């Protein structure tokens, strides 16, 4: 192909007048990213007004520099990032005619340094489409299998072997939703009656056991949000009214722990409650829970907030109240020892960066898509 072009090129350069070449500047090419920084953040954008064109943006929290993006297809939710960041897995949905025609769901594999796709696995065209949040899909603890929650509205999960890059299969999970990993071959799902379904895989990724346990909360009393976060062997669920339900998932069956509340009686009286699209974040090494909270009534459980309250998950004491510069619908905390707190508001496409320890506002990065939803840190 090149050779074909060189001929006319030289021809042209000879025949050219009114044009003098100068020292050529560095060869134009595509940038390649360095290894990940713990202060990088991936910002998902479902592009609510143009849903076939979801995107996800990579920003460096230290410099505020926009590093690159990936197109994510229709109803994009979030990437899946293995611990070693050796690959990026993206559950994506496409139609042969944009918003109609034949639907194809895929897991696309991207090289994290070039952001070029290097493969895909076609999965059942059933992945849940909805307001994005985390927990719609997940990797097993050893990053070998990717689990995708399906809703058609029949409920099921698809299992993908990301090492062999093949679909292992699909399994019905009637009445239960979402994917909460709890081991190399085990994960939980949340069921409508307040119980958890424990799903076990074998080393081939095939489902060998589905065990539905007793409800760990009463849905008729107060619902826990689907935005649970993981704290080591414990999944932390928080209810609409701020009750925290820790559930130990280290064993074959989940063991609910002692519940506690994000709020004092006075704070409850002042109608403080959690809210947002991604309203919880855990900083693992310091055992801290970051909760996005606001004052509101019933129906505000997805409303944005401008306050992040920080708790010690061991003592269940509130350590800190962070007043945000701007409204927030999603928060995330970087995994390192000098963590950053990231925040976006779906109603205003900018990324805000804070010191997660002092709560100090550091910077804002504007023009981050249209409707930013989910935040993920490597």
């Amino acid at each position, binding site marked *: 192909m090149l050779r074909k072009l060189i001929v006319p090129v030289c021809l042209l350069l000879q025949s050219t007048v009114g044009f003098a070449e100068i020292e050529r500047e560095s060869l134009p090419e595509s940038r390649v990213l360095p290894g990940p920084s713990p202060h990088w953040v991936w910002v998902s954008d479902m592009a609510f007004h*143009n849903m076939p064109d979801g995107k996800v943006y990579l920003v460096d929290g230290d410099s505020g520099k926009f590093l690159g993006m990936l197109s994510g297809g229709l109803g994009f939710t979030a990437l899946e990032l293995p611990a070693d960041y050796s690959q990026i897995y993206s559950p994506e949905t496409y139609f042969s005619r944009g918003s109609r025609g034949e639907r194809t769901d895929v897991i696309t594999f991207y090289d994290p340094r070039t952001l070029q796709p290097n493969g895909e696995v076609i999965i059942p065209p059933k992945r849940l489409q909805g307001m994005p949040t985390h927990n719609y899909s997940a990797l097993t603890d050893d990053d070998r299998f990717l689990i995708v929650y399906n809703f*058609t*509205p029949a409920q099921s999960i698809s299992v993908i072997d990301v090492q062999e890059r093949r679909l292992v299969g699909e399994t*019905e999970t009637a009445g239960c*939703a979402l994917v909460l990993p709890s081991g190399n071959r085990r994960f939980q799902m949340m069921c409508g009656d307040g119980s958890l379904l424990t799903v076990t895989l074998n080393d081939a990724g095939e489902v060998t056991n589905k065990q539905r346990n007793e409800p760990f909360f009463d849905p008729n009393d107060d619902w826990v949000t689907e935005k649970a976060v993981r704290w080591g062997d414990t999944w932390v669920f928080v209810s609409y009214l701020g009750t925290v339900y820790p559930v130990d998932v280290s064993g074959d069956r989940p063991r609910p722990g002692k519940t506690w509340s994000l709020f004092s009686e006075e704070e409850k009286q002042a109608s403080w409650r959690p809210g947002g699209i991604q309203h919880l974040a855990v900083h693992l090494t310091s055992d801290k829970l970051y909760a996005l909270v606001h004052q509101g009534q*019933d*129906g505000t*459980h997805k409303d944005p907030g401008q306050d992040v309250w920080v708790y010690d998950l061991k003592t269940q004491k509130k350590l800190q109240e962070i007043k945000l510069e701007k409204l927030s619908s999603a928060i995330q905390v970087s995994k390192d020892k000098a963590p950053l707190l990231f925040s976006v508001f779906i109603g205003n496409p900018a990324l805000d960066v804070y010191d997660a320890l002092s709560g100090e506002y550091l910077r804002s990065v504007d023009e981050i898509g249209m409707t930013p939803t989910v935040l993920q840190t490597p």
Partner: protein
Amino acid sequence: MKWLDRFAEKSARRVARSSSRRSFIAKAGTVMLGAAAVPLLPVARANDSSRPPAPTESGDPDSCDYWRYCAIDGYLCGCCGGSFNTCPPGTTMSPITWLGTCTNPVDGKDYIISYNDCCGQSSCGRCLCTRSEGDRPVYQPFLSNDINWCAGSPVDVSYNCSTAVVLGLAVAE
């Protein structure tokens, strides 16, 4: 569409499970197919005059504060070429969807509202309305407005706008 077969058989199970439960929410969860029945069973249910009349209403159906929208999250079809109970041209109504319970300010009664999505075109982009009173998490699908209910439509998940159809009276026990 294959999921329909599986869905039918699953629904039966869901009934069995929920009919032993006491809370209204759980039962509301089981009637969601009533919404589907509206478009699906016209003949069977057309001339039934034994029922109470439809509610008297007031307010602007193209305004987000209209009473029927208490649990909605999406574009109002009335601003998109349809109406509060009709899909715009070029779209297809999802027969299966989430339910809300809204109080009609005119008669003070609670009604069950079926928020059927209109599907098959990209987002309408007009009159976005987000009110989540009584909205439940996605693991309680038929009470959750976070789910793209076009998943249940014959044209699949391209979401254009949402309607709000009065399905019936909410009867407290």
